């Protein structure tokens, strides 16, 4: 007697399946929904003659590939050595702090127990939590945490360096809150909740928070995911953006949103700024080239639009907008 597994017996499981889910017509059943999903994933980009030739060329230059691989391995080995060294140094530092003991003039001298040593490790280690690492002596700064100021009052007053620019614990809290918002946005795909956390961040740390620029980018991303393009554009309009780093993505986002709102003049400024800078062959450049063509066409500058599309196709013949560009040019 065969043992049933879930809903199907082993004998049933051995039965050939005759119908593919992909062949199911759309509907509300699980199979139909799965079929709809799978149909969407069925298309793959063809591996054409161009790809074949490119990979063949790479296979012929094996040595270059191997030397790159070696470079990576050496870099990783050096990284591990440096990391190991840093960990050893940190451990030695903690041991040294523990072995020195509190040495406070108004407290009785006693041998540190394992418990007190552990406690001191925690006190020293705590400020290393924030993303911006303070100097090794930072834990002794008065007022950095309440615990520390109670535990080491005299030592702190003797050894305290000039007051730090940012309170590490506040920075840690800010960092945690922002990381939570990003997690909600990216992992949990919950832009509404992410926005609520960003509001909390703003209420708590104001516009002068150390991580305010990152919070603003996250807010823009959340607003875009919620489809609140007007608000996102409002924030982006207030920014002074440059065509470098994350600024490129913000700039192209702003240009596209401006174009979407029919503000093609302002959008063209952004697209021009992006394309005037050194433009790597990435998607941002593709979007900027195609976006500028669209804006120029909307403004009646057909020659400019055509020139942009021709440049786009020459540079990105298999780009994301290549089909639309060819269709627009009647190719």
């Amino acid at each position: 007697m065969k043992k049933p597994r879930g809903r199907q017996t082993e004998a049933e499981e051995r039965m050939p399946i005759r119908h593919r889910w992909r062949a199911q017509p759309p509907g509300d059943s699980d199979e139909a929904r799965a079929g709809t999903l799978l149909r969407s994933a069925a298309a793959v980009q063809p591996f054409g003659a161009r790809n074949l030739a490119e990979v063949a060329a790479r296979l012929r230059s094996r040595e270059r590939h191997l030397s790159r691989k070696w470079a990576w391995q050496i870099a990783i080995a050096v990284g591990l050595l440096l990391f190991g060294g840093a960990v050893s140094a940190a451990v030695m530092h903690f041991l040294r702090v523990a072995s020195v003991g509190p040495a406070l003039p108004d407290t009785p001298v006693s041998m540190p127990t394992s418990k007190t040593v552990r406690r001191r490790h925690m006190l020293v280690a705590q400020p290393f939590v924030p993303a911006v690492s303070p100097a090794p002596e930072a834990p002794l700064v008065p007022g950095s945490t309440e615990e520390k100021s109670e535990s080491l009052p005299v030592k702190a007053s003797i050894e305290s360096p000039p007051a730090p620019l940012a309170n590490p614990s506040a920075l840690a809290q800010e960092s945690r809150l922002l990381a939570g918002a990003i997690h909600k946005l990216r992992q949990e795909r919950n832009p509404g909740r992410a926005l609520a956390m960003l509001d909390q961040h703003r209420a708590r740390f104001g516009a002068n928070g150390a991580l305010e620029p990152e919070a603003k980018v996250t807010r823009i991303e959340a607003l875009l995911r919620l489809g609140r393009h007007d608000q996102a554009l409002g924030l982006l309009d207030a920014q002074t953006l440059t065509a470098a780093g994350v600024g490129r993505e913000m700039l192209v986002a702003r240009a596209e949103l401006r174009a979407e709102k029919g503000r093609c003049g302002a959008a063209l400024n952004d697209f021009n700024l992006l394309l005037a800078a050194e433009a790597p062959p990435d998607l941002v450049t593709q979007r900027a080239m195609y976006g500028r063509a669209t804006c120029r066409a909307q403004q009646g500058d057909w020659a400019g639009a055509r020139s942009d599309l021709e440049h786009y196709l020459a540079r990105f013949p298999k780009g994301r907008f290549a089909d639309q560009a060819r269709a627009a040019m009647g190719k």
Partner: protein
Amino acid sequence: MPLVRPDATPFIESPSGVPDLETLYRTHAPTVARWAARLAGPLVDIDDLVHEIFLVVRRRLPEFRGEAKVTTWLYRITERVALESRRKDRFRRWFSRARHFEIERTIAPTHLTPVDEVERRQSSETVYRILDRLPAKYRNVLILFELEELSGEQIATLTGLKPATVWVHLHRARVRFVAEMKRDSERRT
């Protein structure tokens, strides 16, 4: 149009009886690329992956004695390289999330990108997100059956499994896929 220039230098010398790399590449690269694209999902660079696969093929070609079908042998290599690539990709995505913001993906749904293309891409990502939660043996069989549209017998030949085992894996893959699909849609609502 020839896939590889006829005057091109062969990658390796051909041992007697065993196909040389160039012949293998010319004959099977498009199929291998399609398997790789299906197994690794939409986020990989397919040129890189095919390159990796044929580097392994070149390395292991002297060991190939023709006991298995060439396609079976190539499929197994593809499967392993694709699996490794997915692992690396997961790590890379995690690392890049910590490093920079993904405005590009977020803003794609503007009037400049056709909506249906965006939806197709999102659905495709959903399929692979669900498939990635299945054990590899179920995941791959489901991909070969539903996406590559191979028959049970063809899958058995390619994977080296018995036909009955293929059907068992496929039944279980389907049950798990539906469960994960429901879980995914609950998580998103």
